[in-house]
């Protein structure tokens, strides 16, 4: 058996390789480390099949990226060592030869993943593992994952790598195959699956199983712990398809592979026809014979003096750069991959330039977010650029040696520096091309999106300034690694390792940016503030890293391999010899590193305190430890806040002179005042209007206590004055603070201002974190049934507010309240604001070069709710004065302003009619720089990040900005007028009700059709895989429940009991629960809802709010026949089931006796989104099957149960089906297998 002999020899050969063992080690360590590093929060076990599956997929990905060498080596070694004339002439059949080699590679690759599992086991059963997180050993958990996830991936990948390498006769092609697989299967598969929504194609393209990992997101912890991956459904076909691909490419290798000598290294031309070259080759050999007599003619070669001036070296660098560039540009993948990706990115713009289906304005600000990922992020398809750099750097460094021409190169009078710089410059030229492709991608994107204001200069700055620098630094590092390692495949692995380090430092706990190569404190571009706020720290960090890379480059020049002597000792010896020449450069590099490093360190660690994530946590922990004892200390309440703020945008600084007016509203005397301040932010010049002496001044944790000589008696008040200085001290490791910037300052109270008493919100929330720091465990949110928590009303207390703000002359400053006066003094502009009704103690101050647009809304007098609020606490504030609605926006972002004003006006009108009057004379909306698309509400003020203004709703599409605006306006009622207790379910009272209110406005103003559009867009989130395990709405604890499930529940209820009844309940809630303790909870809401619901539907209120209910509704049969009367008789067979799922995912079937709609629809007419409703009625439906016979007057098209998808059903498609006409055979009974 020759095949076996080849296999045996090959495996032994590969096992003697250092890199093979390195791969084994890498995966062993990976398997070990990953299970020790991750934290599984949802109760999933570490040895659960789901966990193993997830990390198998993860490791598969890494293996595909770095494991291309084995198959590449096995397929091509004979060519590499020029042994193929020997092995090809040996009496070995092609089948044995290729078969043996392939099997060897396959076995070794499988062994690598086997080592991964070994790593898992050592991690799980080794010392230091908490057995609580481990369930009993189950062999099937490992076997199924290995067999269904790992093995097929390895078989297919190895086959493809082997084919690439064998046919191109270059081992590196194994890596190219890996890149191709990643691009096709990962980027392609994910795009097809999620962006284009082609589920089957996308699922089949997915080789690694990422779609399974995504599906698992939707598994409950119990499922993750028990459910095994099975070869079924689409996954079965996927594995079969990839197996077929493996067989196919191997067959291709078998037929295409030539066991003969090939004179020309054919490189990439896997499938190219070679006839042209063969011709010219044939000619060569015959001609040489004829020419022999003429060779070495005596021609005098002109003698030109050579010179070795600086200009010559420059010329040499350029020549080497040029050839290096051509190497990359001339290879198939060099420029094309990035170009194709760039063009694709541009052409598919409409797929991602949208937010919940709303297209975006392709402003450069927006487009750049897609084109300029940080070097340290892997969540981008531009990860291809670093990968290509790693690959081509190795090609460039090894080019001469692989061609065997190195001795010619090594003896030319080119200094090492010139050789290194030549290659680096060549790489730089390639990267420059890539950057221009990115720019083209951006421009195509803008063309596709119909945006024609091309800000080329911004592109140039972002791509050729910021991104180019990063990639250059990276390329230099990789070149240096390849030079120093001096072993191609080891070099590739070290380079990938270095890249991995850059990518995963956050996971490794390394946070200081001075330790992460080429990193910086981040940047982004915005129309409002440009690059400015980020520029200074960015430049310093890049200068620092450029110094390092200069040093690295000099080291690479010292160790540049230029001879046969590649042993370590010899290289040291040569480096010492070269040192003489490179000493000045080395010294300059060292000085630069020290200078720049010193300056950066001075900024990050001396001028600013260097704080890691754990330090911030520790501050909170210590704060809680030291001061939680004062939690219940009786404190005065804030009555008035007066500020004098001087903003200096150009200096990024501001001074806040504050006066707090505090009143003792308790019935005991208070002898000491407690303040929570911002940690590490000093408050200066503190003074009181009565004798007070500091007892505790803890600026590090942020707590102060002042002792009052004369206690503050009930009803007494005290004035406190202090100064907060917002000033940049250079920059920290986190960059710069963005509160005060050149244009778009946004000073939030919570970021700077002291508050009264101990602040419980500063505690650590996560159970694991608290455990780690030894703090008593407490729920993230107090329980719904925690009565005491309803009396904590600090967030609901109201203050009067006044502010005088000075800013630069060309800016407008805004704070809550009516504008009292505006004046200019010197080159500064001043604004004086004062509230005419109290606000929550939550405000922000804005300053920017705003444009302003205004509208006025005059409430109609004599609304029906007047008597409702007659007895509420602030009747005087709720008057019918006109309200000034103002939008402060960046002048260029003016597309949505009218829509915002309209939405705000209509919303105020609707809400004040339905829920009660708006208390303030002003309503302001302000823009600030940032990518976010949402808005944030404060009393009488809403702010939004620029991302919101970039939404471009289409006339026939969803008007999301309108809805968001309306939602935020609703918060003036839901959140501010009604301030719920901070317990479970509070989000339902704030966010769900704001959304539900906005839905009413949308329906009223934009029409029912539009509401349906909104609902169907929102419903899509139900289709995202999600665990069914969740608490009921009353105890809602996450944004899905608050923003999606909650509003839907109200909408369903409204469909069953009517809009007015639901609003009655809400009005009643507002009336009964004003902002005084005990604060309202969802229990109050529940009671009001029950009160307006008839007895027959009480079960529904319970199912929607008090239980986590899912309906499984399905129409099995729908047939019709025409009756003699001309009517159509429809027969329906439906199946129904209802389950309740608890927060651990345990399902309980609930018997049904529910009212559910049964509907029949006519065929859809042209330009209508749905067919006409010809029958719709609620029927009582029990669990199990039920048959309906309905007579309708028109020919039905489709029919079924719950056609409007009112009830929560994870499978919406099977609710209705096409109606079959009796007697007519359906051709497509079951459609396809896939």
């Amino acid at each position, binding site marked *: 058996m020759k095949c076996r002999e080849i296999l045996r020899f090959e495996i032994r050969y590969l096992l003697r390789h250092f890199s093979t063992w390195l791969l084994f080690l890498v995966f062993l360590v990976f398997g070990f480390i990953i299970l020790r590093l991750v934290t599984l929060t949802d109760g999933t076990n570490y040895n659960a099949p789901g966990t193993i599956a997830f990390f198998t997929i993860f490791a598969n990905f890494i293996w595909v990226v770095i494991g291309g060498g084995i198959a590449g080596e096995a397929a091509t070694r004979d060519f590499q060592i020029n042994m193929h004339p020997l092995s090809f002439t040996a009496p070995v059949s092609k089948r044995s030869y290729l078969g043996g080699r392939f099997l060897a590679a396959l076995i070794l690759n499988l062994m690598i993943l086997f080592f991964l599992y070994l790593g898992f086991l050592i991690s799980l059963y080794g010392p230091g593992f908490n057995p609580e997180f481990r369930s009993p050993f189950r062999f099937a958990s490992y076997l199924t994952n290995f067999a269904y996830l790992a093995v097929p991936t390895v078989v297919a990948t190895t086959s493809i790598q082997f084919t690439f390498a064998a046919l191109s006769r270059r081992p590196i092609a194994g890596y190219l195959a890996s890149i191709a697989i990643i691009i096709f299967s990962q980027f392609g598969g994910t795009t097809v699956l999620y962006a284009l929504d082609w589920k089957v194609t996308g699922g089949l393209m997915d080789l690694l199983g990422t779609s399974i990992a995504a599906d698992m997101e939707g598994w409950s912890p119990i499922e993750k712990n028990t459910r095994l991956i099975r070869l079924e459904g689409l996954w079965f076909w996927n594995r079969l398809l990839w197996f077929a691909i493996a067989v196919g490419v191997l067959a291709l290798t078998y037929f295409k592979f030539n066991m003969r000598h090939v004179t020309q*290294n054919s490189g990439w031309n896997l499938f190219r026809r070679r006839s042209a070259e063969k011709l010219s*080759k044939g000619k060569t050999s015959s001609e040489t014979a004829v020419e022999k007599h003429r060779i070495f003619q005596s021609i005098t070669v002109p003698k030109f003096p050579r010179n070795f001036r600086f200009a010559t070296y420059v010329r040499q660098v350029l020549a080497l750069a040029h050839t290096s560039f051509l190497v990359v540009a001339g290879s198939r993948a060099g420029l094309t991959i990035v170009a194709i990706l760039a063009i694709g990115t541009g052409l598919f713009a409409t797929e991602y330039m949208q937010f919940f289906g709303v297209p975006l304005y392709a402003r450069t600000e927006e487009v750049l977010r897609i084109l300029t990922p940080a070097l340290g992020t892997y969540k981008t398809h531009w990860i291809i650029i670093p990968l290509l750099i790693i690959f081509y750097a190795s090609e460039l460094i090894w080019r001469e040696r692989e061609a065997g021409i190195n001795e010619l190169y090594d003896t030319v009078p*080119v200094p090492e520096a010139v050789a290194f710089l030549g290659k680096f410059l060549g790489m730089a030229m390639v990267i420059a091309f890539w950057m221009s492709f990115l720019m083209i991608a951006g421009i195509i994107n803008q063309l596709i999106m119909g945006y024609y204001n091309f800000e080329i200069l911004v592109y140039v700055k972002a791509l050729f300034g910021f991104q180019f620098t990063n990639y250059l630094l990276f390329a230099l590092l990789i070149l240096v690694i390849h030079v120093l390692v001096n072993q191609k495949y080891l070099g590739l692995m070290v380079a990938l390792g270095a890249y991995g380090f850059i990518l995963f430092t956050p996971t490794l706990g390394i946070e200081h940016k001075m330790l992460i190569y080429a990193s910086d404190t981040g940047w982004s571009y915005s129309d409002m503030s440009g690059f400015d706020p980020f520029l200074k720290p960015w430049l310093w960090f890049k200068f620092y890293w450029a110094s390092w890379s200069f040093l690295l480059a000099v080291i690479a020049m010292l160790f540049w391999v230029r001879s046969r002597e590649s042993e370590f000792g010899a290289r040291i010896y040569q480096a010492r010899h070269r040192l003489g020449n490179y000493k000045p450069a080395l010294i300059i590099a060292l000085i630069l590193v020290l200078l720049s490093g010193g300056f950066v360190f001075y900024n990050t660690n001396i001028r600013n305190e260097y704080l890691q994530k754990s330090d911030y946590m520790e501050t909170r922990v210590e704060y809680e430890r030291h001061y939680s004892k004062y939690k219940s200390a009786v404190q005065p309440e804030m009555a008035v806040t007066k500020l004098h703020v001087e903003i200096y945008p150009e200096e990024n600084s501001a001074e806040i002179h504050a006066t707090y007016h505090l009143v003792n509203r308790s019935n005991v005397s208070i002898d000491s005042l407690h303040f929570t301040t911002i940690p590490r932010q000093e408050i200066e010049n503190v003074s009181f209007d009565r004798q007070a002496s500091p007892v505790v001044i803890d600026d590090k944790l942020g707590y102060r206590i002042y002792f009052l000589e004369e206690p503050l008696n009930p009803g007494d008040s005290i004035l406190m004055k202090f100064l907060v200085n917002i000033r940049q001290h250079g920059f920290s490791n986190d960059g710069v603070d963005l509160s005060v910037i050149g244009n778009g300052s946004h000073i939030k109270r919570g970021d700077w201002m002291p508050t009264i008493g101990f602040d419980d919100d500063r505690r650590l929330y996560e159970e694991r974190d608290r455990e780690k720091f030894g703090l008593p465990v407490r729920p993230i949110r107090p329980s719904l049934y925690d009565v005491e928590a309803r009396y904590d009303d600090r967030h609901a207390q109201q203050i009067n507010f006044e502010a005088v703000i000075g800013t630069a002359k060309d800016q407008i400053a805004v704070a809550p309240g009516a504008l009292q006066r505006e004046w200019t003094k010197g080159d500064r502009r001043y604004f004086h604001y004062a509230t005419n009704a109290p606000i929550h103690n939550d405000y922000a101050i804005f300053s920017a070069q705003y444009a302003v647009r205004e509208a006025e809304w005059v409430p109609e007098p004599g609304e029906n709710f007047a008597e409702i609020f007659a007895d509420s606490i602030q009747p005087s504030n709720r008057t019918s004065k006109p309200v000034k609605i103002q939008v402060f926006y960046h002048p260029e972002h003016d597309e949505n302003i009218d829509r915002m004003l309209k939405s705000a006006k209509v919303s105020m009108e609707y809400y004040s009619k339905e829920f009660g009057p708006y208390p303030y004379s002003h309503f302001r909306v302000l823009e600030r720089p940032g990518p976010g698309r949402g808005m944030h509400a404060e009393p009488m003020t809403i702010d939004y990040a620029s991302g919101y203004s970039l939404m471009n709703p289409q006339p026939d599409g969803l008007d999301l900005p309108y809805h968001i605006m309306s939602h935020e306006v609703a918060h003036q009622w839901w959140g501010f007028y009604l301030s719920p207790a901070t317990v479970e379910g509070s989000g339902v009272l704030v966010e769900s009700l704001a959304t539900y209110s906005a839905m009413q406005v949308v329906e009223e103003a934009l029409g029912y059709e539009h509401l349906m559009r909104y609902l169907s867009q929102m419903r899509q989130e139900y289709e995202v895989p999600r665990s069914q395990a969740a608490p009921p709405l009353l105890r809602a604890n996450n944004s899905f429940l608050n923003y999606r499930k909650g509003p839907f529940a109200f909408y369903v209820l409204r469909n069953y009991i009517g809009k007015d009844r639901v609003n009655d309940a809400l009005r009643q809630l507002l009336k009964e629960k004003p902002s005084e303790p005990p604060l309202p909870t969802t229990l109050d809401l529940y009671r009001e809802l029950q009160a307006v619901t008839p007895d027959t539907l009480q079960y529904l209120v319970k199912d929607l709010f008090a239980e986590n209910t899912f309906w499984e509704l399905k129409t099995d049969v729908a047939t019709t026949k025409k009756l003699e009367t001309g009517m159509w008789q429809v027969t329906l067979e439906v199946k129904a089931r209802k389950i309740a799922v608890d927060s651990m995912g345990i399902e309980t079937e609930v018997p049904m006796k529910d009212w559910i709609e049964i509907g029949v629809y006519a065929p859809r007419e042209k330009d209508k989104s749905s067919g006409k409703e010809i029958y719709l009625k609620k029927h009582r439906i029990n669990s199990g099957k039920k048959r309906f016979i309905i007579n309708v007057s028109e020919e039905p098209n489709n029919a079924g149960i719950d056609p409007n998808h009112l009830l929560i059903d994870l499978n919406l498609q099977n609710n209705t089906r096409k109606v079959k006409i009796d007697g007519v055979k359906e051709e497509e009974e079951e459609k396809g297998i896939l």
Partner: protein
Amino acid sequence: MELQINNLSKTYSNGVQALKDVNLTIPTGLYGLLGPNGAGKSTLMRILATLQEPDSGTISLGDIDVLKQKNEVRKTLGYLPQEFGVYPKSRAEDLLNHFAILKGIADRRARKEVVEALLKQTNLWDKRRQKLGGYSGGMKQRFGVAVALLGNPKVMIVDEPTAGLDPAERVRFLNLLSELGENSVVILSTHIVEDVSELCTRMAIIDQGQILIEAEPIKAIEGLKGKIWRKIIDKTVLPVVEREHKVISTKLLSGRTVVHIYSTENPGNGFEVVEPDLEDVYFKTMAGQPETPTVL
């Protein structure tokens, strides 16, 4: 200009001692370095070509310390390695032009002329636009020569250049080298005696890392005059002859064996004196006959 090699030794990490205390003085002219395969020729050549480091010893080229001022050496060096590859997709003209830049011919016009002349000289002019991947072994070798000749090197090191050439090519190539030797140091390593005998003004024989003899070929041959004897014998009596005489070489001629022996006197026994040639010098040296004056 003179290349001076003093006490050069080199041992590889696998224990093979490639050079043992080599001392040579190489003047301008064509210098032959003769030795069997594995004698240490290539090691010596690569050390001279700045590609390897000796363990000890010094080399100087005029004022240049070859081991320390590598870049200075490279500025006057032409090197043709024993084996080398080319970029299959490059064209001869482009690659030669590229090397011309690297060799310091920065002026574009000068470079154009030099490249053209060299391509003509090596008779690759007609093939200048052809990809190197399609070149035959001899053409590739000539291309290497063109690269080595770029920039009028003062020191030319050619390592076994004639191995891939056919007889005619070989002769012309050697002529070219000897022309170059008129004002440069040209060192030619070879294991073919004819390469040296025809043109080299001086030569050395190296074996197992040691220089056995350094001489002018003509003088070395003269030194053997009357001392080489020949006899055609039957193969079966060879052991007897070997026992009785100092056999330096045996050769087959039409099925019979021709024996050359070294003897200062007439050995009789049917041996006839022959006119010695360089081959006899080589074989005599290799056979390890002690010869008092190593330098003749």
